[in-house]
């Protein structure tokens, strides 16, 4: 933040509420630097929360599984030469599935797809959502009115339903799943960002930047954005959790990334019909994997949220 930003050609001497412009500019710059310090302090507090540490640990375990994959798995996840439906044992700790494949190896291999697609979908939806929400909140007026209605209409339906509809018409490739989930997350993120931006846009640092003659896009993305990063980060982490939730449900319903990718949701879908026959391990372990990953992501999101809300 340079306090010596070039002054506009003919600087107005007072702001809308009648205060001297110079005073507002100085106050605004001060406010901006105070907020920077507060953000650093928050990050320190977040890192010390036990739920954050546990969440990060679990996510890291799955990241290691995704990266090392076949080098970590005791068997080839596609090798079906073992006996079918073997219960968990020393050789096959999670048992084997109905075609004799090692469940543990498939659970490890399944981490890769979900850890690629889910964060990518959340980030893509996040970027679009931030831009859209920023425009709605900062530009406002008629644009906001129209876009708000559309956002509301999108939010009126479970993401899962619209995703199913879209994937049926587009076909289910990994790219389609990624794009559809990102598109459906966009209005949700936009709504959060809009609310946060509206709370900021009349603060001194924004007025100060306006008086200095900064462009709207500079104010939106260089001045306001760092200050609404808190809610955005919370929303993003929550979205990653929901992306795992949505994508695994889609693949359970047969609308996820196509086989032979050993996706957790697809594994549950292959196994759940055998539960009644007492064969629980083919379903339980991939289901537990999904549960552990979504819970971990939500633990992270929750600790970020509680620190930011307390400050």
């Amino acid at each position, binding site marked *: 933040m340079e306090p010596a930003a070039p002054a506009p050609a003919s600087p107005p001497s007072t702001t809308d509420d009648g205060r001297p412009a110079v005073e507002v500019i100085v106050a605004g710059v001060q406010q901006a630097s105070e907020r920077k310090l507060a953000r650093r302090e928050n990050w320190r507090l977040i890192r010390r929360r036990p739920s954050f540490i546990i969440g990060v640990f679990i996510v890291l375990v799955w990241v290691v599984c995704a990266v090392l994959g076949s080098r970590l798995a005791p068997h080839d996840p596609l090798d079906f030469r073992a006996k079918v439906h073997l219960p968990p044992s020393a050789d096959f700790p999670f048992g084997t599935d109905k075609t004799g494949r090692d469940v543990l190896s498939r659970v490890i291999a399944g981490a890769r797809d979900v850890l690629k697609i889910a964060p990518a979908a959340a980030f893509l939806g996040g970027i679009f959502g931030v831009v859209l929400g920023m425009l709605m909140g900062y530009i406002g007026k008629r644009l906001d009115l129209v876009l708000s209605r559309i956002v509301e209409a999108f939010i009126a339906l479970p993401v899962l339903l619209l995703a199913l509809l879209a994937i049926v018409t587009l076909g289910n490739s990994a790219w389609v799943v990624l794009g559809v989930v990102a598109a459906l997350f966009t209005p949700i993120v936009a709504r959060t960002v809009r609310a946060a931006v509206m709370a900021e846009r009349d603060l001194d640092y924004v007025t100060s930047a306006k008086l200095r003659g900064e462009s709207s896009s500079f104010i939106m993305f260089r001045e306001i954005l760092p200050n609404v990063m808190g809610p955005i980060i919370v929303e993003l982490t929550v979205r990653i959790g929901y992306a795992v939730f949505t994508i695994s449900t889609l693949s359970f319903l047969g609308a996820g990334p196509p086989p032979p990718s050993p996706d957790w949701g697809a594994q*549950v879908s292959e196994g759940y019909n055998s539960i009644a026959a007492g064969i629980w391990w083919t379903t339980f372990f991939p*289901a537990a994997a999904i549960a552990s990953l979504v819970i971990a992501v939500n633990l992270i999101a929750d600790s970020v949220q509680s620190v930011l809300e307390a400050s």
Partner: protein
Amino acid sequence: MRRFLLKRLLSAIVTLWLLATIVFLIVNVLPGDVGRQILGPFATQESVAAYNERLGTDRPLWQQYLTSMRRLFTFDFGDSYATSSPVNDIIFPALGRSAKLAVLALIITIPISILAGIIAARRQDKFTDRAIVTAGLATSSIPEFVSAAVLMSIFCVHWKIGKVFANPPEGTSLLGQFPYLIMPALAMAVTYFGYLARMTRAGVITAQNADYARTATMKGLSRRAVMRRHVLRNALAPTITVISVQIGYLMGGIIGVEKVFNYSGLGSTMIMAVGSKDIPVLQGAVLLVGVIYMVSTLLADLLIAYLNPRVRLEGV
């Protein structure tokens, strides 16, 4: 009050129209040839064209849009691609079966989560509070089909309580259906417990720290009376909103649960429609869920207005 109601109704209709438009756009404008999608990659170009003509998917988009809007307002979605029977004959009976499941889930989850939320708020930052909040966070983040599969493994198979197949035989009395429906309903209840409990907790904490609650305590009302007459009335507004939103979302989660328990409700109907690329059925079902969401949020707004005169007089 009447202006408030009218305003809400109008905005619900606008939202529904936009929703129908979104659904139309997803189905029609996104690249993807409907006939090709249904008939598969090996069908000849002629048969795909003939199929599109029969479905009306070869007409100009604006004509299809008008048809689709007319269908929305008459609530007639035409015939299923897969079975040729009217969509309404498929989705409404299925909705009835899903509604039974959803209502049972709500009956289980609403009192328990509101109670848990109140207890957590009263014990704020103590162990009980932490336990309830963490449990709520965990259960609400797990997809419904996962909790359904886990509950089924534990209760239906290991302990032999509840049925693996949730479809009760024809002619079972409403009470007799209970053992069939309880496990899938529980799987849904588990997911919604977290949201409701956390929302109630937040509402109660805000309300019990508010000035009016302090005034009520100062004027000598008992804790119980303060809670019932002042705190809960205000605290439950966000909870009611969440419940109404959840009723729409229940219909998303129900798909997975119905599949796990082989229950033939709206969710299974949608999965079958996905499998056979039966777009009219899917479109009808999705819009039906949208209507349910609109109606339930509208009812929630009315209930909140009834509980809180500030809302109905200002007409927010």
